[in-house]
């Protein structure tokens, strides 16, 4: 019996249409606009000015705080401007615009394809991960070096690699597991060494048997080569959304449950995405900054021959990617960045790709138009679906009446915004929309209280 998480979850059609599309290298556009807010935490401070010449891989933004990350240029050329531009949600964010000239990489970056298996010492690893701006590519873009240094007194018993890719449509993680499995496993071994050699499990959902097979054979091969790869195992998981959620994956793999408002390290687990593992490999073994990532271009309305998995440079305009696949398909009414469950609709195609971009998903009117909301019939489907064990119907009622204390008692702050409640509601109540706002309000109250208690 394959494992999965114990509470809630849903089974949307996985629609992995683009799973057979090999990763194509996306051409470099004539100009790129690199955002300074590509990670969780404080946006980076630009360190170049208009007119400066930059090389690919050169630092153009420095971290502004403990939870922040370096930003590097993804191209070589001249800085055209530094200033606010609209991101894909239309909000103003500092961007650096660079006109591309040639493709020259900064010194000390190994761009060869040779696989390096020797793992350096821990200090080198952390400094390279930090200097190369690696952030979590599973969605939250949390700076990886922070996650790999657990607070004193806490020890990791498990390093879990997230290869679940539970969001429908997305296939970028699947493709890298097929095409760059060795790099991912070496990346895992690097992170395992930093964390003090915990048990390392790569969790992959069973709708990707090819990935399980490839990854298993690579792990077996590497184990023979060096002892640093012992203790890494592949675990096929029973398909269920949201398996890729950090807390759900920990539950599925270890059976441990993170407490309300707790962190994975509280139960001795560190979770990293397989794409992050690849970025760690590139950063540590090749000294390559995180300036490229894989992105799926897909959708039911996109013909099979136009589906793609692209290796893109950060800062590439989304409109450029759309042009590469021959424009927006006629039936599409909505373009989403990310998966259909948790992704964000794009209101501005002039926005550019960031480190965490995972897809461009085209949706039709039938897939996106909301049906009219009707009354809650207390069927409990949302409660059954909630992977955090919350009662969305109750939270919805409390939120609409502004009952903050009761919302906190009912743990609205634990909502992971996976959308299972909204997906399962037969009355089409916008549960997540309302709960998300209430969650923000309650977290603000909790933070305020904590700040007051500190004083």
């Amino acid at each position, binding site marked *: 019996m394959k494992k999965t998480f114990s509470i809630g979850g849903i089974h949307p059609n996985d629609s992995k249409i683009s799973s057979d599309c090999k990763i194509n290298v996306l051409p470099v556009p004539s100009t790129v606009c690199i955002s300074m807010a590509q990670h969780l935490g404080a946006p980076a401070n630009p360190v170049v000015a208009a007119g400066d010449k930059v090389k690919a891989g050169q630092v153009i933004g420095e971290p502004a705080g403990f939870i922040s990350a370096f930003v590097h240029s993804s191209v070589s050329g001249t800085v055209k401007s530094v200033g606010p531009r609209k991101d894909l949600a*239309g909000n103003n964010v500092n961007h650096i615009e660079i006109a591309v000239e040639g493709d020259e990489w900064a010194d000390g970056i190994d761009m060869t394809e040779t696989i390096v298996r020797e793992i350096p010492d821990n200090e080198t690893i952390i400094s390279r991960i930090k200097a190369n701006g690696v952030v979590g590519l599973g969605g939250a873009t949390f700076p990886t070096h922070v996650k790999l240094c657990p607070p004193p007194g806490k020890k990791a018993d498990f390093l879990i690699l997230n290869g679940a890719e539970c969001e429908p449509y997305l296939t970028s993680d699947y493709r890298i597991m097929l095409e760059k499995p060795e790099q991912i496993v070496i990346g895992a071994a690097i992170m395992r060494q930093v964390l003090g050699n915990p048990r390392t499990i790569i969790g992959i959902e069973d709708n990707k048997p090819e990935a399980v097979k490839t990854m298993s054979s690579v792990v077996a091969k590497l184990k023979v080569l060096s002892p640093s790869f012992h203790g890494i195992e592949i675990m096929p998981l029973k398909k269920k959304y949201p398996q890729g959620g950090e807390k759900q994956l920990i539950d599925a793999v270890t059976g441990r449950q993170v407490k309300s408002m707790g962190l994975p390290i509280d139960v001795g687990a560190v979770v990293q995405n397989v794409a992050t593992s690849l970025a760690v490999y590139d950063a540590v073994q090749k000294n390559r900054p995180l300036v490229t990532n894989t992105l799926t271009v897909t959708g039911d309305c996109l013909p099979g021959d136009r589906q793609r998995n692209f290796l893109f440079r950060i800062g590439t305009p989304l409109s450029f990617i759309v042009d590469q696949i021959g424009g927006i398909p006629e039936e599409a009414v*909505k373009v989403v960045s990310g998966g259909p469950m948790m992704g964000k609709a794009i*209101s501005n195609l002039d926005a550019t790709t960031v480190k965490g971009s995972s897809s461009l998903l085209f949706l039709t009117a039938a897939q*996106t138009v909301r049906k009219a909301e009707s009354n809650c019939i207390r069927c409990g489907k949302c409660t059954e679906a909630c992977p955090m064990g919350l009662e969305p119907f109750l939270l919805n009622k409390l939120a609409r009446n502004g009952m903050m204390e009761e919302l906190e008692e009912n743990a609205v702050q634990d909502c992971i915004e996976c959308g299972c409640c909204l997906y399962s509601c037969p009355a089409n109540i*916008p549960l997540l*929309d309302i709960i998300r*706002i209430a969650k923000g309000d309650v977290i603000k109250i909790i933070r305020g209280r904590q700040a007051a208690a500190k004083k």
Partner: protein
Amino acid sequence: MTTTIIWTIAIITLLGALLAVVLYLVAKKFKVEEDPRIDEVEKVLPGANCGGCGHAGCRAFAQSCVEAPNLDNNFCPVGGNDTMKKVASVLGVEVKEKAPMVAVVRCNGTCENRPRTNEYGGYSSCRVKAALYSGDTGCSFGCLGCGDCVSVCQFGAIAMNPETGLPEVDQEKCTACGACVKACPKAIIELRNKGARNKRVFVSCVNRDKGAVARKACKAACIGCGKCAKACPFGAITVENNLAYIDFTKCKLCKKCVAECPTGAIHAVNFPVLKPKPAPVAKPAEVPVKAEAAPAQKEQAAVNPQPTEKKEE
């Protein structure tokens, strides 16, 4: 049979009498001393329990009035000065008159001025929409048009205009309780002085983008050019972050800024409608201003016919 009934009645009567005595004693012993003036003050309050004063309801406000040494920090926006005078007479204290306020929607983003760049298909709530993205136009500061302000107004004083897609305040019904100000996630609505004869001048825009960006998103945006600040003889206008703001405590309603504004972002409402001059002074900036200001004047005039009468006098 009869004795049973008699006994029952007797026991219950006795029990009732006994408990009445107990209740009487308990009520005496644990009596909560409350200032009788709280009840009196509460009686003169409007009783809307809207929370506009910052208290949980009218009774909490009454309590606060009674407990405070003076009425300087307490004001009932719904009842206004009349109510406060009554409260003052109950309490026997002085009260300073406050200028009446009114909610003002500071956005010019009508469908015509501000073209839609995308279509919002989510849940119709400004807060939800604002949490998701910057909105369905190029302006990330302007009105989102889902009407959160309309649904929180207890006095029916604010309504969406389907033609412009913007909320409009009925100045007669508005009590300046501030519920809409709190509800607006974009902080567009502001409480401003109602002004002499309801005349008001204000910058109807909150866009802090640079001029060119703001203008591209909305034809009637404040571009932060600063012409109004230069024109103002009273120093009432400040330009900060590419946005002009008129301090209503300093504004003397001279309307010089309205004529200067190149985009028509500054609105003057409830001023007498002037007959078009036969040969207007050829100031290029003035033309769009008049075109912009005219509909606002018309709409306000319909609500409040006073200004036109004034002109005839």
